[in-house]
């Protein structure tokens, strides 16, 4: 068990990367604390799986180091890193029984049979596989097979980290949440670091204590689900997390004043706002906008009922602004104005939150 540090990591699948796009991973410095539950969230092709394979040792990074505790494991093969990985499609050894599947990683390492039995029994109990131990693994359903994959990771006692590469892709929807809470529960029991890769925000936010959001081969933000929601570091995070996503509106910065379509707006990060050459935008979530008597004049375009609340689409000049209102609340017929919650409104420059010491 150890913390995992990624130092100055970069990776390219081409031999001589030149253009920016040649890098699958651009520049990463991340530290994963021992025993943490992390989610790696991002759209397809953002470099999540590449990063995962670098940590597990299936890939060697073109540049930078991977440290487990204080040891440099950058060039160690996967079986010497003490890691476990659960893949998108369940990997089981078809011809073996469930018991033999779980015992496989231990037997390969020469653990004696009485200890194997003890561990397998224990893990089977944890993963609810006990009734199936003597069945052939190929006969199980997809969720059963995923449990075997997970069990093979848990059965070893020296595992530093268990990684999940979109493990619920092939699971039936009604079993997904069940398996997800099982995972969460297992994490609390075994206290091993877990890294969960997904492009599904619900999976990421419910599983993880810390969510690492990636896009275009770089980490955009690391934070708790609340951080990501309340203070997105990048407009991408604002848009990707939350439904509907953050409203992004172009704005002009004049000294310390932020002006959107001729209307002055108060923002939370005004101390850091600078008028410069970057593309200036404000971002705020639909949850933090309300109808009011004054503010931004809009026309209501569409109202969709989402059960406990309504999503209102309004039009301000040629921009769309979405807001959420309670189910009982009335939508003004005409002459509607929007007020923004000041401490949840942020100014972004070239997509990045304007603040002191920003990462860009």
């Amino acid at each position, binding site marked *: 068990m150890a913390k995992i540090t990624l130092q100055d990591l970069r990776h390219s699948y081409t031999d001589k990367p030149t253009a920016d796009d040649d890098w699958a991973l651009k520049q990463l410095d991340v530290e994963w604390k021992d025993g943490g539950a992390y989610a790696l969230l991002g759209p397809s092709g953002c470099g999540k799986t590449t990063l995962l*394979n670098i940590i*597990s040792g*299936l890939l060697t990074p073109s540049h930078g180091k991977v440290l487990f505790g204080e040891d440099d494991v950058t060039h160690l*093969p*996967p*079986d010497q890193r003490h*890691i*476990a*990985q659960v*893949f*998108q*499609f369940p*990997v089981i*050894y*078809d*011809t*073996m029984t469930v018991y033999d599947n779980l015992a*496989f*990683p231990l037997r*390969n*390492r020469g653990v004696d049979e009485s200890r194997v039995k003890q561990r397998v029994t224990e893990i089977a109990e944890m993963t609810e596989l006990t009734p199936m131990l003597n*069945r*052939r693994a190929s*006969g199980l359903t997809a969720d059963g097979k995923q449990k075997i*994959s997970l069990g*093979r990771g848990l059965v070893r006692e020296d595992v530093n980290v268990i990684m999940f590469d979109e493990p619920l892709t092939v699971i039936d929807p009604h079993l997904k949440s069940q398996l997800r809470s099982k995972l969460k529960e297992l994490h609390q029991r075994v206290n091993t670091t877990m890294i969960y890769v997904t492009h599904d925000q619900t999976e990421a936010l419910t599983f993880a204590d810390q969510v690492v959001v990636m896009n275009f081969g770089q980490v955009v933000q690391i934070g708790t689900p609340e951080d990501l929601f309340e203070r997105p570091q990048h407009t991408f995070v604002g848009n990707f997390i939350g439904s509907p996503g953050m409203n992004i509106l172009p704005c002009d910065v004049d000294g310390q004043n932020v002006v959107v379509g001729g209307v002055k707006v108060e923002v939370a990060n005004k101390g850091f706002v600078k008028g410069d050459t970057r593309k200036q935008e404000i971002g705020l979530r639909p949850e933090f906008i309300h109808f009011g008597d004054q503010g931004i004049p809009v026309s209501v375009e569409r109202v969709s009922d989402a059960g406990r609340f309504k999503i209102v689409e309004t039009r301000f000049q040629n921009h769309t602004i979405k807001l959420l209102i309670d189910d009982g609340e009335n939508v003004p017929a005409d002459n509607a104005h929007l007020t923004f919650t000041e401490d949840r409104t942020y100014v972004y420059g070239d997509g990045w939150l304007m603040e002191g010491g920003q990462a860009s």
Partner: protein
Amino acid sequence: MNKTINQKAWFFVLPVIALVAFNAIIPLMTVVNYSVQETFGDNTFFWAGVIWFEDILHSERFHDSLMRQLTFTFTILLIEIPLGVIIALAMPRKGFWVPVCLILMSLPLLIPWNVVGAMWNIFALPDIGMLGRMINSLGIDYNFTRQIGDAWFTLILMDVWHWTSLVVLLAYAGLVSIPDAYYQAAKIDGAGSWAIFRFIQLPKMKRVLTIAVLLRFMDSFNIYTEPFVLTGGGPGNSTTLLSIDLVKIALGQFDLGPAAAMSLIYFLVILLLSWVFYTLMMRDEEQ
């Protein structure tokens, strides 16, 4: 749920039944017809019951060629299946050499059977053939036209050369269809290369290998052209396999009744052995 029973569906099957009838059932029935009749020429036939079947089943000549056939088939299966798997494992999985290897592997399969026979016949001739001369120059007395052992050696070598490729291609197809995740998981689980072969590659190749065994079994059991061109069944009758013997009886001696009875027995042996192979190899599949 109630299933609707609709006998009209049979009409849709009719074209297939007609086709199968024309290309399999009707020709087979003429053989059945010959097998239970006796003729003295002049296109007149008499009912003979099952005497031809009894004759064939008790004939030493048939027993001998059946034994030769079984020896030949099992020998080439024992060589070609493991060899094919080994070559497939050694072939590259990606890159420039993949198409090169695949084409090289397919070449023997593209050569017409009688050309293969003729090629090997000349190749192995002890006085002018390259292989024959080479072996003799090593001090080994080799002559496949005179010595039984040499004839068998050449015959098996020819079949291995001609058909191992088929096993290679099938096994290779099975191998490349294994997702990378299996190899990655095995690496993480600390599996060695034997364990990877035993628990991942072999189980995943099982279906294609079953097909390979069945195809090689049936083809080699029916083999005619290549041994006929290479050795003509000789020296003596030492390489007279079932089909060569059958043709001798049917067209050489023109004994239509015994030949027809032998064909049917021949067919049933293949059917039975194929079933045994299939059942044995697929035995674990259910559960």
